[in-house]
């Protein structure tokens, strides 16, 4: 199962990003575990400067916006 973290300090875009990733994963039948993380330490550790940012299996895949569906499908596979 893929471990997906959405980093961001509780803005509306972060919540939407997490929901969208879950929905895309459900559509594709991929098992994922999506969590939101607002901890400044984690954000610092990944060097993220614009949120929402998406971490898949501990790797930074996207930052600064709600990713589009094609991009999500790409990093889920």
């Amino acid at each position: 199962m893929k471990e997906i973290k959405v980093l961001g300090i509780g803005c509306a875009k972060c919540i939407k990003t997490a929901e969208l990733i879950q929905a895309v994963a459900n559509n594709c039948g991929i098992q994922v575990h999506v969590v939101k993380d607002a901890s400044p330490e984690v954000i610092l550790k990944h060097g993220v400067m614009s949120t929402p940012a998406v971490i898949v299996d501990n790797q930074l895949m996207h930052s600064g916006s709600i990713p589009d569906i094609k991009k999500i499908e790409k990093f889920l596979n």
Partner: protein
Amino acid sequence: MLSIFTQLANWLTYSLFSLDSNSRLGQAVHFFIEDTTKIFFLIVLMIYVIALIRASLNIERVRDYLAKNNKFFGYLMGSTFGAITPFCSCSSIPVFLGFTSAGIPVGITMSFLLTSPIINEVAVLMLLGLVGWEITIIYVLVGMSIGIVGGVFLDFIRAEKLLQPFALKAYQAAAFSNAEHIISTKLSFKERHDFAKVELLDILSRIWKWVFIGVGLGAALHGFLPDLWFEENLGHGQWWSVPMAVLAGIPLYSNATGVIPIMESLIVKGLPLGTTLAFCMSTVAASFPEFILLKQVMTWKLLAIIFTLLLLSFTLVGWLLNIIYVV
């Protein structure tokens, strides 16, 4: 170019609705039509254009630039970047940490973070459209000066000692080289367009109701409050009117869109320029919710210092402008 909106309002108010141009109702309706059409036109056009350009301006580049350059120049650049890089208030923490862990002094980072909300694109566009370019330029220069002076002061008192321990550690280690980098690819026009469209819809969905509320109140003041009412009733530039305006602006946070059309009326009704601009800055930039967020990277003491610094500088600027523009 913007006079087309005056003509549109003339036609709708006086010809179509056949209202009397000397009546209070007629003036209020005219103000409402002219301002709402003008604001929405400016916002839709300019936010889209700005977002197209902004798609390629990323915050990582700003950080790398600031980290490389010398300190005294840094405050000016921090403030300049703050003015031209609009960013969501929820990004202030990642930006703060990113800058700090790149070894950029706290004062320069704060020059960026203080200037950024004061000079945001919506506020500047509305000032430009409603109260004219002279006042807009004064507003921008004052906003940048506050960012620069604030930054210099924070470094002078060694504000980094008042950061949360993990943030201080990151600053001392300047762990810049360890940070992951997203490889930025060149964006196609379609990607820029998509980015700009999302941005525009996001901003519009947040502010449209404040435009109507603000212009509505502004129109009511415009039509029903006699000209120069403030000048006659408050006297010109009473000293306490400025701190009052600053305090009144704090709870109005995030409603800059609603406040600026009211300001337009207030200036016409004789509210002094300094008082009006102090009120505007306080509304746009001094927000409790945003400050509470910064608690995650700073101690209460530093937060209190910065908040006081902002309120004091808005007040000082208000007084200064009232003295200069008294004639």
